[in-house]
């Protein structure tokens, strides 16, 4: 018998900073499923909406200055750039609300199926919810289309 020389195995522990993906981790989901992209979009829409909220509250407060101030504000908001912003807000709201409904549904354990023994191939709850997810995203698209139509024809 020949004794084999054993080389010591060195494990490198990554530092805390090197494990961070930074902004790349916000937009790139790698091999994660589609739900990961919904999660990223949910966050971005949520951030957009909370940043918009104080501006919206200020705009609604303009009515206290009288009808002239209100008309002036509405005239500014009817410019194409603000209409485009309004469409973005509507899109963010529709997506965030419908995806939030899906998340709430999941938190309550709905549409995830009954628990099963972990036998290979393992059941994945997300796959069971996929049909509901697809249906809700189609619904979001329909609401958005109707809303954009309503905004452009008012």
């Amino acid at each position, binding site marked *: 018998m020949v004794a084999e020389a054993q080389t010591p195995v060195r494990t490198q522990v990554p530092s805390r900073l090197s494990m961070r993906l930074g902004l790349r981790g916000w937009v790139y989901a790698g091999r994660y499923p589609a739900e990961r992209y919904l999660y990223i979009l949910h966050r971005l829409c949520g951030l957009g909406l*909370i940043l918009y909220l104080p501006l919206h*509250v200020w705009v609604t407060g303009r009515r*206290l200055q009288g009808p002239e101030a209100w008309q002036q504000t509405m005239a500014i908001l009817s410019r194409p750039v603000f209409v485009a912003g309004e469409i973005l807000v509507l899109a963010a709201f529709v997506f965030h609300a419908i995806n939030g409904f899906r998340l709430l549904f999941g938190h309550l354990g709905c549409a995830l199926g009954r628990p099963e023994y972990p036998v290979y191939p393992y059941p994945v709850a997300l796959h069971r919810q996929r049909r509901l997810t697809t249906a809700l995203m189609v619904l979001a698209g329909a609401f958005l289309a109707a*809303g954009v139509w*309503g905004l452009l024809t008012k």
Partner: protein
Amino acid sequence: MRESRLWAFHLICGAGLLVLLSLHMGLMHYAGILALLGWVREPVLSFPSVVERGRGAAWAVMYVLLLGFALYHGLYGLRGVLGEIWDTPRAARFINAGVVTFGLAVLVYGVAVAVQAARL
């Protein structure tokens, strides 16, 4: 325990927003469709319409509730995102103080607008 309560309230506010914000957005952004159905007669953003809605107690309560739910839900989410980026205890205290101050300032202004609008 405290964090799970805050999280539960975040979900409750989300469910409340789903109802109240859908009503608000439905009226404001789907006015063209509502007008086709005959549910809305004059433009929802005309000054008389806006003043008329502001005078109703039910509308005022709805808007204040909507603002409270939206601020809590949104700022709790923002706090979570900022906490992931700056995850030190000192940063957490700073973020908590910032979102509470900002939220209260917007809430006080929003409630003041709703109260004054009811007197127009």
